């Protein structure tokens, strides 16, 4: 469960203060697939960053499973990110000096403890990369890199997955494959999926669509009701 109350974010640019998000209130129940949409500069990624505890709000609070994460100390926040959240980014964000398997293992090494090698290998096989385990990111195609990123996001079976334009840098075939994998995770394990996208087709698969404009929610619709 994600709860957002009175969330504001502004940044200073020289002498100017730019308001990126203006008083956002949002509640996302566990297991829901929410697509956040909006034009460039509408504040989508900023909202995602605040929901995931990657950034600090100027005002307001974010609660994950009842715990306010907006003002947690850095170590506690790292713990929340590591154990409860999985991330998928537009530009894959793999560690270039680690192999596919090592990239997937990293969250396990940072947060899980014990040997996660079997889980990581199984996950990579499940995303169709059985023969690419020991390849470095630079040796993989964009689609393959994103599938490694998915496996990394899933390895600790987090209850919430945040995805920032996960299909943005992929061709339609790879994009569809990645989306399928995300949906599969959302449906099979009941993980909450918060996905930022420009693509209306992608948002069609979501349970709920939240549209931002100029830092405010201008549309919040349940897809079943649409």
């Amino acid at each position: 469960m994600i709860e957002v109350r009175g969330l504001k974010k502004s940044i200073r640019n020289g002498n100017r203060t730019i308001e990126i998000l203006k008083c956002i209130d949002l509640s996302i129940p566990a297991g829901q697939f929410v697509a956040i949409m909006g034009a460039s500069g509408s504040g989508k990624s900023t909202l995602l960053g605040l929901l995931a505890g990657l950034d600090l709000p100027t005002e307001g609070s974010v609660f994950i499973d009842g715990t306010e994460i907006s003002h947690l100390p850095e170590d506690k926040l790292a713990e929340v990110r590591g154990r409860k959240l999985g991330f998928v980014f537009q530009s894959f964000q793999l560690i270039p000096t680690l192999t596919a398997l090592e990239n997937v293992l990293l969250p396990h090494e940072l947060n899980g403890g014990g040997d996660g090698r079997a889980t990581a290998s199984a996950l990579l096989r499940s995303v169709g990369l059985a023969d690419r385990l020991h390849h470095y990111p630079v040796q993989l195609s964009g689609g393959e890199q994103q599938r490694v990123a998915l496996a990394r996001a899933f390895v600790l079976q987090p209850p919430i997955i945040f995805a920032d334009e996960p299909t943005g840098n992929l061709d339609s075939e790879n994009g569809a494959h990645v989306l399928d994998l995300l949906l599969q995770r959302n449906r099979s394990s009941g993980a909450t999926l918060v996905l930022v996208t420009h693509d209306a087709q992608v948002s069609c698969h979501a349970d709920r669509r939240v549209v931002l404009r100029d830092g405010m929610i201008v549309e919040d619709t349940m897809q079943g009701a649409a």
Partner: protein
Amino acid sequence: MRTDQKPSLTWASAAKIAWRELQASRAKFLFVIISVAIGVAALTGVRGFSDSFQKTLLGEARTIMAADLSARMFRQPTQEEEQQLNVMGSHGIQRTQVTDTVSMVSSPGDPVPLLVSLKAVDPQRYPFYGTVDLQPAGDLRQVLTDSTVVVAEDLLIRLHTQVGASLKIGDSTFRITAVLVREPDRMSSGMGLGPRVMMTQSALEKSGLLQQGSRSGERFLFKLPANNNIAAVRSRLEQVLPDAQVTDFRESNPALTDGLKRSTGLLSLICLVAMVLGAIGVAMAMRAHLQQRIEVLAIMKSIGARSSDILRIYLFQTVLLGLVGGLIGVCMGLGVEWIFPSLLGKFLPLRLDLRLPWHSALAGLGTGILTTVLFCLPPLLQIRSVRPNLVLRRMVEEPSAQQSWWTRLRHSKAQWIIAIVILLGLGAIAAALSDSVVVGRWFAGALCALLVVILGVSALTLRLLRAFLSRTRIHLQSAVRHGLANLYRPGNQSAAVLAALGMGVMLILTVFLMQHGVIGEMKLTAGPNLPNIFLVDISSRELDGVKKLLAQQPAVEGDVETLPSVAGRIISVDGTAAEGLKLKNYPKRLLQTVSLTWSAGLPVGSTMAQGTW
């Protein structure tokens, strides 16, 4: 929410990531390794060479004294003193007695007696170090018996006698069994009044020369077991024999060893400054590296890494770089140590006994790693401020951008603490290298002041450059304009580069000035032109004739230096009569005959500790 402690990244995983990154940026880190290696090489080379040189000197010094410790007195020890000396002997400290006296000797065929310097030893123990060279070659223990003597060649010439002949000493006659070519402690015996005659202690007793009131000097030579604390034994000996003049082998060549120690300390500090310069380069390289890896840091944070996990990776990397650079530096330093003697061969009076300088190598390695880690701490601790939302957008607002420099200064507590840690660390290294806490304190203080001044001047230069460009911008060529403007763009390390350059220039200047100072001092105290022949007891009326004679001798180099001298006697010191003076380890009888000299000005190389000349 689970509350159990989140596990940390293991050192093995941190090492794996660190190693992969090192491999991916080999060229960049090669520079870092070379920077560390050069500093460590200089330090190891200088200290290793100095260590070997000092050990060789000390080895020779034992030979000059023929012992580790010597106690000289002008009487036989009392029964109580003898007992206490025996107690020392029970702790493994070996002792032998050497008696120096003068006597008249004569050859049976020549009625004219000759004044000789007589030395009585126990050939079974004497000398503890060095050898007695005889002609014909032989072992002193076999050649010198209670009925034989060995003599200097000039005695044979002056008495018109030869090896195998007899010599009358006191009440007894002895057979000359060999010519004494060299005795190790000749310099420690004092200036001889005649040719040397060496005999056994029993023979001296048999000759009846030593009677109550005879003028003789007793030297007790001691050999300590390995790893014995010489300072403690010396202190004990000074208590046991309060009248004796106690010296140990470390004092046998103070001018050279002190000069060497000072030069080594100075060169070590110069090497440390060079290492600091290298470390600034290393810190800048690490900062640039982390800047390039900032996205990776953000990714790691976004998937649950704590700052301490990431710090572990880069700390491991830093230590590894310091270690590899240090090890290469140690190898290079050993090369320097081995090359030094061949370069300085003709200036060194000794054949150096080169050995693996473990202490110097460890000191160099430790200094290299410590300096690297200390200087990399500021960029490493910047890891804490990397924001994980960089994974979403490249440009992230810097919280400090909206604060004044004074606020930023007050808020950068961690940076201040690191700066203090670096200074303390450098001070400690300097203190360890120079064996002086005071030097360490001054070094850290001076370096700090210097950095503040140089950074201030650098900042001022950049501000002036900015002002200059804002006025002349349109008149300059675009390449020049962009090049100069790039020097003060945000995130540029121009101030640090200027500071490093400034320190480099200053270091070269310091080395140049110090070199002149040290060489001047060494020339004065241990130069090759110091006199090696002394003529004594020349009366004023003979002086001109002697000077003329010496001027005609082609083997005599340099100007003949004359020193006036008159024998005197100390009556009182500060109103206390000589008899009432309480002297420590200085025989009172020496106050009875002192040599007085005079000069219009303070002699060259002398310093006034108190008062005026």
